C-alpha cells in the first residue's frame, strides 16, 4: 500500500509561541486506513490535523501528504491538494449565506463541475445524510447535528482520497453521531479513502478495522 501521509521526525510549533506542540514524531498512514487520533485537551491533536492540510508548516522534519512535501509546498499546490481532501470541523464551518445544497457542493464549485453534476451529487449526498428535505434551507436554520451532517456531506462530495475530521461528533446527539460515523466508515470501506479523525472518544460500535494514535507530551504513540 502507498503512504498517503508520512511524517519523519516531524516537529510542529506555532510561530509566535515558544512551546513545541508535536516533537520529533515519525509515522505513516496508508491509503484506505481509518485512523483515530486521541489525547488530552491541548495535546496537539488539532495542530497535527491542521498540518495535514497545510495550515501549519512543519518546524522541523518532513511531512508528506498525498505526495506533497508540506514544508516546501507552494500556495498553488496547497490549494490543489486541498481540493482533493475532505475536511470536517467541530464548528462545522459552513457558509451561512449559502443554502445547504450549495454548501454541500462547495468542493465541486471550486473544481468547476457543471451545475447538473452539482445537483445530482447534492441530491445523493443529502439523501445519505438524511437531509433531502432541508436542501434549500440555510445552515443557521438547522440544528447542530444537521449542520454537522451537511459538513460531512460536503467533505465527501468530491470523493476525496483523504478525509480529515476534527471532533466531528463533539457537539452532536446520538442519532447525528451515528450518521456521521456511518458515513466516515463507508467512505473508508467503500471508497478506499484514508480517514483521520481527531476525537476525545472512539465510538463503542465501529464496524471496520482502524488504527489508534495517542498524542501525549508532544509525542505520537500508536496503540496496538
Amino acid at each position, binding site marked *: 500500500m502507498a503512504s498517503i501521509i508520512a511524517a519523519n521526525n516531524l516537529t510542529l510549533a*506555532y510561530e509566535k509561541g515558544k512551546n513545541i506542540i508535536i516533537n520529533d514524531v515519525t509515522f505513516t498512514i496508508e491509503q484506505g486506513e481509518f485512523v483515530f487520533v486521541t489525547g488530552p485537551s491541548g495535546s496537539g491533536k488539532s495542530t497535527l490535523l491542521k498540518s495535514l492540510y497545510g*495550515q501549519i508548516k512543519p518546524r522541523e522534519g518532513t511531512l508528506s501528504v498525498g505526495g506533497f512535501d508540506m514544508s516546501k509546498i507552494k500556495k498553488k499546490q496547497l490549494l*490543489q491538494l*486541498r481540493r482533493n481532501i475532505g*475536511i470536517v470541523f467541530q464548528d462545522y*464551518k459552513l*457558509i451561512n449565506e449559502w443554502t445547504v445544497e450549495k454548501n454541500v457542493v*462547495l468542493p465541486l464549485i471550486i473544481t468547476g463541475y457543471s451545475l447538473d453534476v452539482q445537483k445530482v451529487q447534492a441530491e445523493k449526498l443529502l439523501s445519505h445524510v438524511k437531509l433531502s428535505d432541508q436542501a434549500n434551507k440555510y445552515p443557521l436554520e438547522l440544528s447542530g447535528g444537521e449542520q454537522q451532517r451537511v459538513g460531512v456531506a460536503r467533505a465527501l462530495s468530491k470523493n476525496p482520497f483523504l478525509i480529515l475530521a476534527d471532533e466531528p461528533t463533539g457537539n452532536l446527539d446520538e442519532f447525528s453521531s451515528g450518521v456521521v460515523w456511518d458515513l466516515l466508515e463507508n467512505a473508508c470501506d467503500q471508497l478506499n479513502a484514508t480517514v483521520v479523525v481527531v476525537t476525545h472518544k472512539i465510538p463503542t460500535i465501529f464496524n471496520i478495522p482502524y488504527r489508534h494514535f495517542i498524542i501525549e507530551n508532544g509525542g505520537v504513540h500508536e496503540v496496538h
Partner: protein
Amino acid sequence: MKSIKDHLMFILPLMAMLIGIEFILVFNRITSSYENKLKNEYAILVVSQKNLTTPYLRSIDDKIDSVEAMNRADIAKEVTSGMQDAALAAIMKDLPFFYRVHLTSYMSLKELKKIRSELKAVNGILNVEIFGENYHSKHTIFRLVKMLLNIFIVMLFIVSIMLVIKQMQVWQLAHKDRMKIMEIFGAPMMLRSGILFKVAIIDAIIATILNMLIFLFIKSKWSQNSDIDFVKHNQDLLFNISDFFILFLTAIVIVAISVFIVAMNTREVPEG
C-alpha cells in the same frame, strides 16, 4: 434595507471620485477651448518702417503663427478726415506699416513680454503693443477658479478614499468567513473574491451611470439656462461619450484594487 445601505456605502464615495475626475476632464476641455478662443481673438500690434512677412517673424520667434497687414489707407483716412487729398498723400508717404501678429497658442504674460522684446529688437520695428494686462486678466481669474477646483477635487478624493477604506473593512467582515472556508477547500483567490468582485462591479456600473446622468443633465438642461455665455455656447464640452468609458475604467480599477486588498487581507497565512 441593509443591502441597499451596503451598496450606497461604496457607490457614494465612488461617485464622488468619478465626479472629481469628470470635473477635471470638463474643466480641462473648457480651459483648452477658452484659451483657444482667447488666442484666436488676440493679436499683437506691430508698427514697422519696413515690410514684414510671416516667415521673417517666425524666424525671430517660432510661437508666431501669422502676420496680417492692416490697411494703411484706412488708418490714414481716419487721421486725415476732412483734409485734402494732397495732405492724405503726404501722410501716406510717411505712414509706417501696421501689422496684427497672431500666435500659435495661448501665451502667458511673461511669454508675451519676451516676444515683445524680441520684436522690438528687430531693426525697423518702431513699436510693439501686446495688450497684455487686458488679455491676461481674464485668464488669471479662470486659472484661479481652476486651482480652487483642483484643491476641492483633491479634498474630495481624500474623503472618498477614506470612505472606500471603511467600506473595505465592512466587506472584509462580511466576506472573511466565506473566503477562509473556500480557501480551506482549495479555492483560488479569483474564485474566493469573485462574489465580492461581482457586487463591487455592479456598484461601479451604478456609480458610473449615475455620474453620466448628472453630467448629461448639466449639459442638456442646466447649461441652457446658464448665465455663462461661454458654457451656453459650448455645451459639448460638458460631457463626451468617451468620458463614460474613462469613468467606467476608473471605477473598475478602483473596484479591482479594493477587492484585491480585501482578498489579500483575508487570505490564510500558514503558521509554524
